């Protein structure tokens, strides 16, 4: 097997678990088919829920008749929007006006606003029966004009989605840093790009959303078994809507079949399950169908960039840019308009330009609601910055490699403060780029180009750089809504030494394949002085029993910082207590005690050693005669990154704690006759600071790469003019399979973060590096055949063929003027 090559430039520390690719603790149960995913959970007498969904993208709801469904034997009951409107309040809105006025309920109330929107819920004894009954529900729709294209959302005659909002704009704001006028005055060239489009897609985790919800009438509490990946956020949304305190919502996760951000916003469906569990006095089981997921859940943000202007000096120095971003939020604001600020974490990309102006407008349309998707909002923005670099290079004749290196933030400038006050903690971008180029065979590029030409193929090289900003400062939400009371971040872990010496860890996180049980064990083992097998990390999350904080969850590339920060903090506390306890036994100073190999022992005297089991037994079962304030061996730590609230006037501040980098490079070959292209070489070089488990890190890089390649070539949520999704299943939404993947080489460097206790950086999202580099490679390949400008993030074969047939329209997008 030669498709994967790793360039190891950092030597592993010997004798510690940290830095080793220890086998994952998760794997055994998963390869045996013994994982517990949400659809695996059953309860006696549970009812299966099926949603009646809107076939219209925009319609007034008339009468709804559920009587025929209720008459079917085995049907337990139904829930309609009218009931929901009585039993709950609209979900809390993150948006300031105008988006704040959106009224969003768990089922459609009054109107439907996208195809696939849940209108009625039907519960029955079997899955089949619930579906049969759903077909008997009669809903009268009065179709309304449909808004599909966000660019038309502000037209005078545009259909209005939410009458309370007086327009379709959910958020708009101007973000400006530096002196744009001066930058453009200083520039020798101005490159203008009239329109760029970042396409709509998402990561389509293989397991769809689901829940099993029970209601305890005695305590008034719901137990919600679900695969929601951010239960803290779900609870904040659900509690006020359902008019109950958060402690009434016990949210339990176990194995989750992929999330990628797409499983954050299932709270409307969870509310429906809760209401029905109470109404029907039985457990409610809901498993979303694939088609339903595609039509209704968590699409990635679709974004246009209009009237982009770039100020460039004659020597290729980039001074700044201005643009107008238009974001398509879909029909409801389920996590939006946070996408309106998240991009600002990476405002300049990897470049040193100091002058940036971005007018951001977000519009609601009759399409599925947008919510976080791997690389959320940063991917779109980084794609813009990478497109800018390659279009500038193309138009002004610069080498895409050299112009990058010239304008990169340089390693000696780290930590580097961006124009908007973010701080890039560490990194060596030029070196990472060199490694990536070396892996794809850049030095022989021109020979390969000629060889491909001899076979009638067009060959091109592309580079895609991406920043994985890890650990949100939620204070950034105040930049879009000053009234929001969110800031900072936190995560919790508990570590205890149990009675027989086993180390037991609970996390606030809800992993979906990231291997938290393993990496947490590695960190604990090194601190406590035991082997990884002795550490037991509880599977999944239970908000009743796991200690957790407001921002607990697994999202936004933060586990390596917040999650492991909490684990390290709690482990340090436990180590102190264990040493103290041992010192009490040995009548010595705690400083004389070391923890190693499962023993607390006196340094320099290995004979004087207490096994961990003895420590656990003393505290838990044999503690008579203890002094006041004894060790508990049960430690909880809340990790809180050192954030301030960003300045609302200047929109400056540290929005993120760490910045991991992925540098992708690829070579494509295009068949000029058909537009069909193939990636023939691919490299991804990762720098996420200190790696706890290199194999897991590499796995994340690979996964992000595959998502990006899929989005670049095949995956799109395309709609027709009536608002029907044209790709609602895996036939038409082609996700790459094993035969589609190009040969991959991976490399890595480690630039430890100076801001985190372990030198780690949040990683895993990858921000679409593959999309950027495929776009760049196509543009490079087409240079020899008309010089089209790649203007869309998604380039199926027919688009490439169109650009080959007539590069004119794409070229007309770009204009260069001297100043």
């Amino acid at each position, binding site marked *: 097997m030669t498709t994967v090559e790793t360039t190891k430039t950092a030597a592993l520390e010997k004798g510690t678990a940290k830095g080793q690719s220890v086998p994952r603790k998760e794997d055994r149960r998963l390869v045996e088919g013994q994982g517990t995913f949400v659809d695996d959970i059953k309860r006696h007498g549970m009812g299966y829920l099926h949603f009646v969904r809107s076939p219209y993208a925009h319609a007034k709801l008339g009468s709804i008749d559920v009587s025929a469904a209720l008459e079917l034997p085995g049907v337990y009951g139904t829930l309609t929007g009218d009931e929901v409107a009585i039993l709950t309040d609209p979900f809390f809105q993150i948006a300031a006006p105008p988006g704040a006025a959106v009224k969003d309920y768990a089922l459609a109330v009054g109107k439907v606003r996208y195809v696939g929107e849940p209108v009625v819920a039907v519960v029955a004894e079997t899955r089949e029966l619930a*579906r049969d009954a759903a077909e008997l529900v009669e809903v009268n729709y009065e179709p309304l004009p449909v808004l599909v294209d966000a660019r038309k959302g502000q037209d005078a005659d545009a259909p209005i989605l939410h009458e309370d909002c007086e327009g379709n704009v959910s958020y708009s704001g101007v973000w400006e840093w530096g002196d744009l006028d001066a930058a453009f005055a200083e520039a020798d060239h101005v490159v203008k790009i009239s329109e760029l489009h970042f396409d709509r897609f998402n990561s389509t985790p293989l397991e769809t959303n689901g829940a099993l919800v029970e209601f305890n009438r005695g305590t008034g509490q719901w137990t919600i078994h679900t695969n929601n990946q951010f239960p803290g956020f779900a609870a904040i949304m659900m509690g006020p809507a359902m008019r109950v305190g958060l402690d009434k919502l016990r949210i339990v996760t176990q194995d989750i079949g992929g999330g990628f951000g797409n499983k954050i916003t299932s709270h409307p469906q969870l509310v429906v399950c809760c209401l029905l569990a109470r109404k029907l006095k039985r457990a409610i089981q809901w498993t979303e169908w694939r088609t339903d997921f595609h039509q209704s859940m968590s699409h990635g943000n679709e974004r246009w960039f209009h009237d982009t202007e770039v100020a460039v000096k004659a020597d290729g120095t980039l001074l700044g840019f201005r643009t107008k971003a238009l974001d398509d939020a879909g029909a409801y604001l389920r996590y939006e308009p946070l996408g309106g600020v998240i991009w600002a974490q990476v405002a300049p990309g990897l470049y040193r330009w100091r002058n940036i102006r971005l007018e951001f407008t977000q519009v609601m349309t009759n399409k599925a609601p947008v919510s976080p998707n791997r690389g959320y909002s940063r991917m779109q923005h980084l794609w813009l910055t990478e497109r800018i670099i390659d279009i500038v290079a193309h138009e002004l004749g610069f080498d895409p490699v050299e112009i990058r290196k010239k304008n990169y933030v340089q390693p000696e400038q780290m930590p580097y403060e961006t124009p908007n006050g973010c701080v890039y903690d560490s990194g060596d971008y030029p070196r990472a780029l060199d490694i990536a180029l070396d892996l794809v065979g850049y030095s022989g590029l021109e020979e390969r180009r000629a060889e491909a030409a001899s076979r009638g193929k067009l060959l091109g090289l592309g580079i895609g750089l991406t920043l994985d900003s890890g650990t949100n400062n939620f204070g950034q939400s105040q930049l879009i809504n000053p009234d929001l009371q969110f800031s900072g971040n936190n995560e919790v872990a508990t570590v205890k030494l149990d009675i027989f010496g086993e180390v037991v860890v609970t996390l606030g996180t809800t992993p979906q394949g990231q291997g938290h049980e393993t990496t947490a064990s590695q960190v604990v083992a090194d601190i406590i002085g035991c082997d990884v097998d002795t550490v037991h990390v509880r599977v999944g999350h239970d908000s009743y029993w796991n200690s957790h904080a407001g921002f607990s969850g697994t999202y936004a590339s933060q586990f390596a910082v917040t999650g492991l920060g909490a684990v390290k903090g709690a482990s340090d506390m436990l180590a102190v207590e264990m040493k103290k306890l041992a010192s009490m036994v040995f009548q010595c100073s705690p400083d004389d005690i070391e923890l190693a190999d499962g023993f607390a022992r006196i340094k320099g005297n290995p004979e004087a050693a207490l096994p961990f089991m003895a420590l656990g037994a003393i505290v838990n079962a044999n503690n008579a005669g203890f002094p006041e304030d004894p060790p508990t061996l049960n430690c909880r730590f809340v990790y809180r990154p050192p954030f301030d609230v960003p300045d609302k006037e200047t929109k400056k501040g540290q929005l993120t704690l760490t910045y991991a980098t992925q540098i992708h490079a690829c070579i494509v070959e295009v068949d000029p006759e*058909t537009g069909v292209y193939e990636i023939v070489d691919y490299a991804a070089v990762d720098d996420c600071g200190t790696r706890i488990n290199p194999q897991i890190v590499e796995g994340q890089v690979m996964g992000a790469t595959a998502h990006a390649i899929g989005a670049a070539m095949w995956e799109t949520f395309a709609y027709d003019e009536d608002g029907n999704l044209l*790709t609602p299943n895996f036939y*038409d939404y*082609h996700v790459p399979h094993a*035969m589609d993947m190009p040969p991959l080489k991976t490399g890595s460097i480690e630039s430890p973060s100076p801001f985190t206790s372990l030198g780690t950086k949040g990683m895993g999202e990858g921000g679409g590096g593959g999309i950027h580099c495929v776009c760049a490679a196509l543009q490079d390949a087409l240079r020899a055949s008309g010089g089209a400008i790649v203007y869309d993030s998604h380039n*199926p*074969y*027919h688009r490439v063929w*169109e650009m080959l047939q007539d590069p004119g329209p794409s070229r007309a997008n770009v204009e260069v003027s001297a100043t």
Partner: protein
Amino acid sequence: MLLREVEYARPASIDEAIRLLAEHDGARALAGGQTLVNVMKARAASPDVLVDLADLAELRTISFSADQSALEIGAMVTSSQIVGSSEVEVARPILAEVASTIADLQVRNRGTIGGNICVNDPTNHFPPLLVALGASMTIQGRDGERTVSAEEFFLGVYFTAVGEGELLTRISVPTRSAGTGDAMTGITLGAHGTYIVSAAASVGSVGVRIAIGCVSSVPERATAMEQQLVGGDYSDAAVKAAAAGLGASLDPPSDVHAAADYRRHLAEVSAVRAVLQAAERARG
């Protein structure tokens, strides 16, 4: 994902299968189920009775006709069986080559040639191939059997010459004679994926047969192109010249994967490539 209630029977003989199909309104034959079960899951169509052909061993054989002039492939022969068949390898290897690219291995393990052509989804592989190869289909009903040519067989999406109460029993493909070359090519969604446009060609001593897939509800014979090639000049230039105008003669659909114009263009490119490859193979 969940089917409507459906009656199911599993006959032990072809006669019994035909009787069941004839006697029950809305009865459909169930072969490998790789399309039918899917369509039923979506409830896009709901047969009232499924007649499962699984036990009809005589539909699972591959053999030669008495005069050795044709390969007789039972309707229930799976794609995987075709891929592994020594008879196919000897007599018409293109069948195995194409079968090996249908959908994926799991689907090939259950999906049958009979099901593939009775469904006649425009993106399916076998319909254009069998038209190009000049295959014929044998259909059995209560009154006996009849044979139709591949062109007569395909009537529309999900529609074939197999009428109510009838059963497709076998497909006859002429064995390859010396100087024959077959090829199938096209543009797919991903490697070995769904065809966006396909073209099959068979070059032989009497000329070339070309069929285009995905451009209409049935495989389209490229007769004008065939006629231009009767002289037997399969040079690059001649084949390209012959294909000119093929696209314009078609009225292909536009969908999310390709606009009609792109399909017209791909039809020409694919036809050229298929013919060139077939001609090269014909030369040996």
